């Protein structure tokens, strides 16, 4: 029944679609939905998925690799360097603290010291997949709890390499025979002495940094120039696969390597394009990963001794939470941030699966000990979203301060996201002026040559097609306050504005219009902020002509303002009429008719000429009349 790949795919996809949409409808995190789907289709309830669950888990771990690549993309190297203290400090404290406490706990339960040590290693590690997915979903990446969580997880990703390296030293049997069974851990590093291992690690990091800068970016530019979109997708996958391969080859965590690769590429103009390309695949793979975790929960083991498992489960979550809370306190996090950090990372992570099964193969752990810990790991992971939910709904509201509310006013420029579409002559002027106010708009442009050139001038420009919703989304349209559209092509302008209006009606649109007729169309689409490129410039010119003829500048300024107001009013009035007749053939004739209408309705000698401000002539005449009578 479970043999065919197609059937498996159907089971997983259907499970995901049903459970996740139910979870989302209930306002829960998608992670809960996936885990639930996994439990449902797993061997103990519906039985669609049997032994192959483990293979799927291994395959789906690639989702974690992609996720770290994407996280890396969002962290620029200089920010990464700034985080080094939190990574070492918080991460180190958390890992050492948790290992100590859980080692004590498991020796008290009469476990052998080696077993306790291995288990405490596994316990110290949290789940990057679950924690980061939740943090991203809740938009907490920029909060202190988000970056602290991330630092700790990153430290764990690094420390796990050393843990895996240390395991053979604890082995009860003669190591070589058992290690043979696990080719995945037989890698380049094991055959080298310690000094060379460190060298190899440093070397591979250097390789990633250099290939990123001097190989990958130029390659992406070439690919972008071909204009074939699927090539870019292929290139994105190639990058992630290649980095993972290199990392596994030297025995480092592929996730860590992917993260580094992401950081290297985060400064490139392809950041958003890569993000939008990989995002859906990452989400699906992560979903698969969560489902596999759900399916791997062994209910028979639970049924055998539910109280032991329940007790250990609570104890582990509690001791992880205590260490995290203290870590947060030492690093002076505010109470609500400490709580988010504490409950977000209080689970055992996916590395435990690797560590535990490796330890088992080295004969450190016995079968039942491993089963017990695997079940507990899966359970802690499944409980995380639920604990997070309790924290969010019941504890945090009482604690009060949410970081997003109390932002000081001088962060106005930074806290409001502006997206600028099109960076031609029009858009670049807009962008330069915004920049003079400290407002760094996220810029999207279609021309990769121009992107390249502008980046050399120090602008932050990204390459991509703004009529694609996923690209707008990875540029952050969901959090954007405004989108400025300065594209020259009217049909692209219409597509972009329609798309944003439909999916993100709260984003305010500021749109460039070529002329009256484009403005009519945009007005009829319901867009209010329209900037005709032909209005201000031509009036500026006319004003200067009149000034050179001897007319006073201040009066001209006022008259120009009057004219703009008059013209905007007539534009809005005529837009309604133009909707009635969309026939293209009559367009030319209509335009002439309309010019005629405009000219005949125009105020020739308008308001300023006849206003009486600062003009005493009428007073003089009134007085003369008074005197004569």
């Amino acid at each position: 029944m479970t043999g065919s790949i197609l059937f498996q795919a159907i089971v997983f996809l259907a499970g995901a679609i049903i459970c996740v949409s139910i979870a989302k409808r209930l306002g829960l995190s998608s992670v809960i939905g996936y885990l639930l789907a996994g439990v449902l289709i797993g061997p103990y309830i519906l039985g669609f998925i049997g032994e192959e669950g483990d293979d799927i888990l291994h395959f789906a771990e690639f989702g974690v690799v992609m996720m770290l690549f994407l996280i890396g993309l969002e962290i620029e190297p200089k920010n990464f360097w700034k985080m080094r203290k939190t990574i070492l400090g918080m991460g180190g404290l958390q890992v050492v603290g948790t290992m100590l406490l859980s080692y004590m706990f498991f020796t008290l339960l009469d476990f052998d010291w080696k077993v306790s040590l291995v288990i405490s290693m596994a316990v110290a590690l949290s789940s990057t997949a679950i924690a980061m997915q939740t943090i991203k979903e809740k938009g907490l990446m920029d909060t202190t709890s988000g970056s602290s969580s991330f630092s700790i997880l990153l430290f764990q990703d690094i420390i796990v390499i050393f843990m895996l390296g240390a395991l053979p030293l604890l082995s009860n049997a003669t190591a070589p025979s058992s290690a043979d069974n696990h080719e995945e851990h037989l890698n380049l590093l094991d055959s080298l002495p310690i000094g060379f291992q460190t060298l190899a690690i440093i070397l591979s990091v250097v390789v990633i940094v250099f290939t990123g800068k001097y190989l990958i970016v130029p390659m992406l530019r070439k690919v972008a120039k071909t204009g074939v979109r699927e090539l870019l997708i292929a290139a994105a996958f190639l990058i992630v696969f290649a980095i993972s391969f290199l990392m596994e080859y030297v025995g480092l965590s592929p996730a860590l390597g992917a993260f580094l690769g992401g950081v290297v590429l985060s400064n490139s103009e392809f950041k958003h394009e890569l993000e939008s390309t990989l995002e859906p695949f990452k989400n699906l793979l992560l979903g698969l990963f969560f489902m596999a975790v759900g399916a791997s929960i062994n209910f028979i083991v639970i049924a055998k001794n539910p109280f032991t498992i329940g007790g250990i489960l609570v104890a582990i979550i509690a001791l992880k939470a205590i260490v995290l809370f203290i870590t947060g306190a030492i690093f002076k996090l505010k109470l609500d941030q400490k709580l988010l950090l504490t409950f977000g990372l209080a689970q055992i992570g996916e590395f435990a699966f690797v560590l535990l099964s490796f330890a088992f193969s080295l004969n450190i752990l016995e079968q039942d000990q491993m089963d017990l810990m695997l079940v507990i790991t899966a359970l802690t992971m499944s409980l995380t979203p639920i604990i997070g939910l309790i924290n969010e709904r019941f504890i945090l509201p009482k604690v009060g301060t949410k970081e997003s509310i109390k932002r000081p006013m001088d962060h106005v420029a930074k806290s409001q996201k502006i997206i600028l579409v099109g960076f031609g002559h029009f858009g670049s002027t807009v962008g330069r002026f915004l920049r003079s106010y400290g407002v760094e708009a996220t810029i999207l442009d279609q021309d990769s040559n121009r992107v390249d050139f502008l980046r050399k001038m120090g602008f932050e420009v990204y390459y991509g097609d703004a009529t694609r919703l996923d690209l707008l989304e990875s540029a952050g349209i969901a959090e954007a306050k405004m989108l400025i559209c300065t594209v020259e092509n009217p049909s692209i302008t219409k597509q972009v504005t329609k798309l944003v209006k439909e999916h993100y009606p709260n984003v305010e649109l500021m749109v460039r219009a070529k002329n009256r007729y484009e403005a009519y169309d945009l007005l009829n689409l319901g867009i209010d902020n329209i900037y005709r490129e032909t209005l201000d410039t031509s009036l500026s010119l006319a004003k200067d002509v009149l000034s050179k003829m001897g007319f006073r500048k201040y009066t001209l300024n006022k008259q120009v303002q009057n004219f703009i107001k008059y013209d905007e009013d007539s534009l809005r009035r005529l837009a309604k009429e133009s909707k009635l007749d969309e026939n293209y053939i009559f367009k030319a004739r209509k335009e002439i008719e309309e010019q005629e209408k405009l000219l005949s309705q125009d105020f020739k000698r308008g308001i300023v000429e006849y206003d009486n401000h600062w003009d005493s002539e009428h007073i003089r005449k009134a007085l003369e009349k008074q005197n004569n009578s």
Partner: protein
Amino acid sequence: MKKILVLFSHPKFEKSRANNILVNNIKDKEGVTFHDLYEAYPDFHIDVDAEKELLTKHDIIIWHHPFYWYSCPPLMKQWIDMVLEFDWAYGPNGVALKGKTCLNVITTGGSRELYCSQGSNSFSVNEFLRPFEQTANLCGMTYFPPFAVMGTHLLNDEALKEHAVQYSNLIDLLQKEITLSTFNGCAFLNDIPQLKTL
């Protein structure tokens, strides 16, 4: 010869009969810089550094403007607010204008009789000009009585030309070394005998 800066502000100069006649008589005189504020800064974006430089190059500053609602037009107030900066024009190190001379040249629609405690405007022009007088004082400048062309609504072109000649004579007089005591306590410079005799 003293250098004179005429800071002229009129939002609708092209419509002002009186000021056109007055300005035409003095703007091209030697040693006079005629600075038309509304033409220089139609969008009210005053170039403060350029204005400061202009001030330092002159000895006598004339605020020439019509009298609107008992005060100056908005751009001239803007000019005062922006150019006369702390620690430049006033304050402990604000000595840039010290020792210079300053006065108002104004045109009013109402005649002089209306500007007194019995008249419809209740106060004299000198009283209304107190803020300008004190501004000059604070900047360490000597404030001279105003030259005021009043009742312009009822003055014909000939009468206005008379005033314009007097304005020109005043400029000539100011260019020579004169002190406050020259005016003998006159409330308006229009009244000093020197203008008639010249």
